[in-house]
């Protein structure tokens, strides 16, 4: 990674870097050793605590069904929230007041309520006004809660992404006679997708993690909920948290890796079609404003 922020390291800086790295890794090794000793001292490394994870029962009874529910809820929420978010984001930029204002109200409202409570209300809604069966209801409620919240965050991401494009794009589109809808679908959206992608991916990771809220009150048997059942059985709370934490990391890293691969494809294909937005322009526009959700994760680094 070459940066405009500093000079390329010279011989002295290189030596210093190596020295720093060595010191750091020695300290890290000492620290890990201490962690290991302390955990051993507290009896957390006893094989009986970890052994369950080598049995197939622990996986087939608790973890895999939990993971399955987590994935199902997350996938459904993503698939529904993305288009809905794009819709609200675009609606918020409408020229018509009666479209813009309600869309803004919806977005701001659902962004400010904790997702857990949204799920609770969604659950109650399904009970009172629909015939969704009791087995399916937690999933429906969890997905609804996630969609309402994340669609409104995604709406902000989309809006910021489109606003970040140079004004000339819209003007040129109008000049060649495109209508507003055409300008949006064939000029603005395709260009802003690459800018938005890192922020969108962050939000997708948030969706995966937030499925865990479904287990708190609704009894949705996602991964973290399955963990508590597992830990009650094997009496290995700390170990189970560590294992489940690792599963989440792997899952989300897979998601972000896939997304950055997709982003790379999009960027490259854009270049090959001779798109007018050169790389300098792309950095000149304002990806920061795109961070509608959580911070944007640069696709290159994930």
């Amino acid at each position, binding site marked *: 990674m070459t940066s405009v922020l500093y000079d390329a390291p010279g011989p002295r800086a290189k030596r210093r870097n190596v020295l720093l790295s060595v010191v750091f890794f020695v300290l890290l090794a000492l620290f890990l050793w201490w962690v290991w000793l302390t955990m051993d001292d*507290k*009896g957390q490394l006893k094989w*009986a605590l970890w052994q*369950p994870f080598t*049995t197939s*029962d*622990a996986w087939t*009874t*608790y973890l895999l069904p939990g993971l399955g529910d987590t994935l*199902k809820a997350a*996938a*459904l929420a993503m*698939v529904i929230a993305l288009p809905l978010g794009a819709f609200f984001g675009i609606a918020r930029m409408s020229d018509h007041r009666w479209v813009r204002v309600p869309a803004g109200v919806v977005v701001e409202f659902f962004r400010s309520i904790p997702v857990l409570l949204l799920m609770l209300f969604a659950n*109650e809604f399904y*009970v009172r006004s629909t015939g969704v*069966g*009791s*087995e*399916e*209801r937690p*999933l429906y409620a969890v997905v609804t809660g996630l969609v309402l919240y994340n669609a409104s965050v995604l709406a902000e991401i989309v809006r910021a992404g489109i606003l970040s494009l140079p004004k000339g794009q819209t003007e040129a589109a109008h000049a060649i006679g495109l209508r507003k809808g055409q300008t949006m679908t064939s000029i603005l959206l*395709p260009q802003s997708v690459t800018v938005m992608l890192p922020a969108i991916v962050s939000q997708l990771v948030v969706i995966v993690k937030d499925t865990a809220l479904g287990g*708190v*009150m*609704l*009894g949705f*048997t996602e991964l973290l909920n399955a963990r*508590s*059942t597992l*830990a*009650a*059985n*094997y*009496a290995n*709370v*700390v170990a189970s948290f560590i294992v489940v934490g690792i599963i989440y990391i792997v899952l989300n890293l897979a998601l972000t890796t896939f997304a950055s691969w*997709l982003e790379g*494809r*999009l960027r*490259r*294909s*854009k270049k*090959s*079609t001779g798109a007018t937005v050169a790389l300098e322009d792309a950095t000149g526009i304002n990806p920061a404003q795109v961070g509608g959700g959580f911070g944007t994760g640069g696709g290159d680094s994930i």
Partner: protein
Amino acid sequence: MKLRKVTVFATTALVLSLAATACGSSDKDDSGSGSSGGSKIKIGIKFDQPGLGLKQPDGTYAGFDVDVATYVAGQLGYKPAQIEWVETKSADRENALARGDVKFIAATYSINDERKKKVDFAGPYLLAHQDLLVKKDSTIAKATDLNGKNLCSVTGSTSAQNIHDTIAPKANLRENSGYSECIAALQSGAVDAVTTDDSILAGFAAQDKFKGQFKLAGLKLSNENYGIGVKKGDSATVTKINTALEKMVSSGAWKTAVTKNFGPADYKNEPAPKIGDIVK
């Protein structure tokens, strides 16, 4: 061109995943509607409380609540194979009954006045007390010993509130999200005692992993009358369950279930409570 290819790929993936999940859920619907055709009964229990309601590694369920529920269901005319166990978290119990998600709930469900406004109770089938679980060599013997000691309970639970308000306001109370976490803290020495209903504590202490490590202090800090929750107004079911519970006690099955589930913890259970006899 390439952009289009990616788009096509992404759309296909989305459609496929939608289709897959749609299929998945409709499959489940089928089996659901098929099973509810009179031959199955849904019962709400806890899934994560050893000794009371626990989902075991082989996928079966065990515990005192489970045994009671199985017996009652048997008296109502359902074989064990016809029972579908549903996890009912504490916060969701009243709603699950009101919605008709489950026929009845046996999930450490203490009868109290607020709850009685929302649901009807059969039983009680067990009289539990708030108690302390301490290490085998602990010197804590009475409630006042707790002042200044470290204590763990579950966030927002009645037991935690009791400690705060009356039993030992000066105790250093820590609230965790689950009993497993509290037990872990007790094991690591971070707390001196865990408090909640003695039945729940006995269930943990009786687990293989903890055998011989903990003991119950045997204090009767409160009275918790475990009842079987039934939808408000369904008095026919309440009557049937009460009859079943009486039979369970008189036939000795009740005693067997208590010994089986709490026995290893040296738990001195109260005699089987009389139906409708709520100890304040």
